[in-house]
């Protein structure tokens, strides 16, 4: 039995209190893309160590031992675990590929891969994603965070009609 989602304002206030707690205790906001970048760098390092260590952007990750011993990596692990606890409790854990009624799995997974790559690239240009820039920077009223958020929604609304089949 799947339970309904919570009221968006209530969930938003809960999320905001988590963000506030993060700022007070950690001294920094929430983040997700940074953990992904470090896991990717770690995986790439296992395959091609010299190429990764020779890269200006990635070599700093390896200066103090493992790139995974970093707060954004454990935060990402926590996000996975928190998401699982909530989904399991609400009866929402189910293996599958989520897509619109007329979209094929192949189309959905292809666009998920391309979309993920664009989002991963964009997050590094912006030094953050919807959590690090939009939410955390926005809560500190940072100009660049609002520029990022505005650009993000403008581009998404512009592309939405072309990928409508994937969702609706």
């Amino acid at each position, binding site marked *: 039995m799947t339970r309904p989602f919570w009221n968006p304002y209530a969930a938003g206030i809960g999320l905001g209190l988590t963000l506030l707690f993060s700022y007070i205790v950690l001294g920094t*906001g929430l983040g997700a893309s940074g953990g992904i970048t470090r896991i990717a760098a770690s995986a790439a390092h296992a395959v091609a160590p010299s190429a990764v260590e020779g890269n200006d952007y990635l070599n700093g990750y390896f200066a103090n031992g493992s790139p995974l011993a970093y707060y954004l990596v454990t935060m990402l692990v926590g996000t996975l675990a928190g998401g699982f606890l909530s989904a399991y409790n609400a009866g929402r854990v189910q293996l599958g590929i989520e897509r619109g009624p007329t979209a094929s799995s192949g189309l959905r997974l292809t666009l998920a891969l391309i979309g993920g790559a664009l989002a991963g690239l964009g997050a590094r240009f912006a030094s953050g994603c919807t959590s690090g820039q939009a939410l955390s920077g926005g809560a500190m009223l940072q100009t660049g965070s609002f520029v990022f958020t505005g650009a993000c929604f403008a581009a998404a609304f512009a592309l939405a009609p072309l990928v409508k089949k994937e969702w609706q």
Partner: protein
Amino acid sequence: MNLFAQDLLGTPLGLLLSLFVGLGFGFWLERAGFGSSRKLTAIFYLHDFAVLKVMFSAMVTAALGLQLFGALGYIDLAALYVPESVIWPQLVGGLLFGLGFVAGGWCPGTAAVGLASGKLDALVFLLGAGVGSLAFAGLQPHLGDFMHASVCSIGSLPQQFGVSGPIGALVLLAVALGAFVGATKVEQWMARRNQA
């Protein structure tokens, strides 16, 4: 407490507390319904503005709390880590990210929650995001000064407009309340249109 200011984020305590913060982050995202990519992308078809409602509520809650605690002297806002505003790369990054968001159906944090809910498309999105991050690392040496290109040295919006932080947070609250009313009106209008 502020572990960042004391350079303690990388210690076992910092890593553990970050894990704990992540637990809350993932929990609330999932409760909001953000373990579903169709729920997340519904905003782009004007059916469901949960993304706007949740994000704005969270941002305003944290902004008001931060300004209040800052004004009371409980926390030093200047000692917090905030991402530096560098306008041009953040504009380009935002555009790329938005394309990826609607095509892929996730953002990094919600994809983690989607994966935890058993969504294979979230796993594929995360693999893509890893590849995209590495692509940036390959591109970065060729970007020259672009990553530091800003229109001027602007930090926060209140500074920009010469008002105090608490006033800025109250303006954000007013904008959010207006957006909630507008979004709900659009949702109702779309629901009526789909019935007809």
